[in-house]
């Protein structure tokens, strides 16, 4: 019995000593997370598979292609950029898990282009992006809620917000379709509701309003959308949803011989992907869509031309469309931001660089960038484009008339902004 007590005591003492020694060892200090002398690690969460993935799943590889091009040409102050893609299937809960992996396991320096409104809202709160000081650049969402610099101090948007887009669309609708019956199909979360609110504020009344739940888009649900629109007699239908939902809607409408004037939101309207998803090109002909960039087929545009060359070499086999253009543009902006932060690269430095120099960056989009110490908003404008019989996108009325506005009650004004020139060979030299 004494032996037993002695053994128990020994175990107890051993445990105390062991645990005490664990405390004694100090944790080692570390350099800036995700940056070494030869590498910068960046992370992105986006839907690579799943219902919402068509089109968007090309963005990561497009960004990677651009980064490889830059790496082959000296990188950023000698450091190579590594982009880690994580598939979140557009599910906010998966976005949280994958972002946790990026920040805690892969220890990335910054997030670039994370996709999805509900996704980033959940991630920002749950993972604590602001608290950890992780820069999240060029969010791939237009939710106007992210424009709040106080709530999202380390995040920067790039796309004009859905509210801005709706305001510009509203003006166009009033000028060109006054008196016609209007229909609206929108994704029933912050993405679509953002636009809906702006339409309401702009005084646009929809005769038929059809919300859909993200993830439920398909030909079956699209049948219900089309029957509601047709029953309501909508002559002009505005759509704010993801590409796979656009495809479902247009495909079913074509089969039902329902052909209103389509006005497609910028997020879900790439003609190439829509055709790949089975939408006949005849249906796309004449569809109006808001766009911020030149058409990806417009090789007279210096940005498009350069990006196409990079795509052919570094992203072989992938057709150059809106998503590839967008991805490469985000890559271009990222490299400029990293350069502007200097060779002594820190997270705080990157955020400061975005605030002070971000508005001067070269970008393919036509509208000015709004980054400043008080604003984390990127592009602020759109022009109306129309799709032609070949499925290409041309500016409505011949030349792109860009309108800019804000996400609030500011007016919609014609823009006179001129884009900065594309850096030579697509390689930024800014500092």
């Amino acid at each position, binding site marked *: 019995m004494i032996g037993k007590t002695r053994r128990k005591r020994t175990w107890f003492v051993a*445990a105390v000593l062991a645990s005490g020694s664990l405390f004694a060892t100090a944790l080692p200090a570390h350099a800036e997370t995700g940056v070494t002398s030869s590498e910068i690690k960046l992370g992105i969460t986006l839907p690579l598979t799943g219902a919402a993935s068509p089109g968007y799943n090309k963005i990561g590889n497009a960004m990677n292609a651009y980064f490889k091009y830059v790496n082959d040409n000296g990188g950023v102050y000698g450091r190579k950029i590594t982009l880690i893609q*994580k598939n979140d299937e557009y599910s906010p809960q998966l976005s949280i898990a994958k972002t946790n992996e990026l920040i805690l396991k892969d220890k990335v320096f910054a997030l670039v282009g994370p996709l999805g409104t509900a996704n980033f809202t959940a991630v920002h709160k749950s993972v604590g992006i602001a608290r950890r000081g992780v820069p999240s650049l060029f969010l791939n969402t237009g939710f106007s809620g992210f424009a709040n610099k106080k709530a999202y101090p380390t995040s920067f948007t790039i796309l004009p917000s859905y509210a801005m887009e709706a305001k510009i669309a509203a003006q166009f609708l009033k000028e060109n379709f006054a008196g016609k019956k209007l229909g609206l199909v929108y994704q029933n979360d912050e993405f679509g509701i953002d636009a809906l609110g702006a339409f309401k504020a702009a005084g646009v009344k929809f005769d038929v309003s059809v919300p859909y739940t993200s*993830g439920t888009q398909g030909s079956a649900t699209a049948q219900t959308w089309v029957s509601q629109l047709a029953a309501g007699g909508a002559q002009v239908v505005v759509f704010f949803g993801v590409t796979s939902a656009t495809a479902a809607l247009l495909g079913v409408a074509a089969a039902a011989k329902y052909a209103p004037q389509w006005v497609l939101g910028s997020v879900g309207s790439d003609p190439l992907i829509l055709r790949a998803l089975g939408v006949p090109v005849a249906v796309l002909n004449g569809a109006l869509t808001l766009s911020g960039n030149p058409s990806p087929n417009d090789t007279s545009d210096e940005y498009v031309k350069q990006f196409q060359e990079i795509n052919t070499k570094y992203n072989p086999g992938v057709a150059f469309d809106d998503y590839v253009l967008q991805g490469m543009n985000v890559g271009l902006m990222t490299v400029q931001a990293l350069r502007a932060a200097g060779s002594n690269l820190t997270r705080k430095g990157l955020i400061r660089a975005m605030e002070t120099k971000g508005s001067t960056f070269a970008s393919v989009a036509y509208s000015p960038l709004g980054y400043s110490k008080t604003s984390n908003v990127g592009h602020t404008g759109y022009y109306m484009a129309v799709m032609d019989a070949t499925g290409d996108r041309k500016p409505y009325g011949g030349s792109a008339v860009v309108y800019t506005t804000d996400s609030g009650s500011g007016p919609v004004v014609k823009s006179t902004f001129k884009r900065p020139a594309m850096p030579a060979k697509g390689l930024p030299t800014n500092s």
Partner: protein
Amino acid sequence: MESWRKVRDVVRKKIALFVFLGWVLLIVGDRVDELRVYQGAQIAMYTIALTSIVLLTGYSGQVSLGNGAMMAVGAYAAALTLNNLQTPIWFAFLMAILVSALFGALLGSAAARLAGPYLAGTTLALAVGLPAIANQFSFLGGEPGLIFDVGFPPERFGEEFTQYKWFFWIASCIALVAIFVTSNILQSRFGRTWRAIRGNSLAAELAGIHASRMKVLAFTMSSALAGLAGAVLAMNIGLVAPGAFTLALSFGLVTGAVLAGISSLPGVVLGGFILVVIPEIADVIANRLGDADKLNSYLPGLIVSVLLILSVIYTPNGPGENLRKHLRKKAAH
């Protein structure tokens, strides 16, 4: 008198053991990096969920594939309570337990007449259908879900005390208490009654046990535990969305329970550990094979399914049981 003293000693030893475990976890939590602490919180969550399966399937013999659905009920109850009534966190957890217990009682009374594959099928339907209901009612948040924010650790713990560590502390504490309580219940008259029902329901009835009432009780308690696990899950990821309660979760839980020993309570920690480790292993494999991101969506589910099939064929009572038999054989020689 003698037997009461024995019982009291056993309980005292148990309390001491759990306190010691809690202390060890505290130390470990301080030492490992944040990712491991977060995974520790997930292990604790799975442990609670597996406890519910051990109670329901291991002890009362009712096969349920719907524990994922009960976790969802608990998680939504907790989130709705916290967001709409602004109660303290512990009250939200309490509501999770109560609401899922209620659902469990309802489910149990419906399922009491079913057994074997019919019960499994019914609960499977529940597992598939219940989370999707969230999409139908806007107050449940739809696909994006409801935020569940338990807040930050108290200031006095200092700056270095991250939120994930706080989750780890809370989750481990809850897990320890849950296992302690369940262990006591399983070693009591209830546990013996359930095992009798599992062994032979008819014989148990003849011995005076009200089988269907006890079965409903098992469902109620098991659902309460599952609901608690769901609330802990909600705390860990900060979000309650249907995407968190997929069929894969229910299958994962069953696999974890079978692997860990379906009627063995100590095994639940091992089971929880396995469930958290599987995605890590999948990650390593996916990286070796290339095209990591796409593979990662499918691999964990595949591994779980394969493990489940293998374990049902080779170790239906869990590898622990096989090991024990093996050791007994050796001892007999």
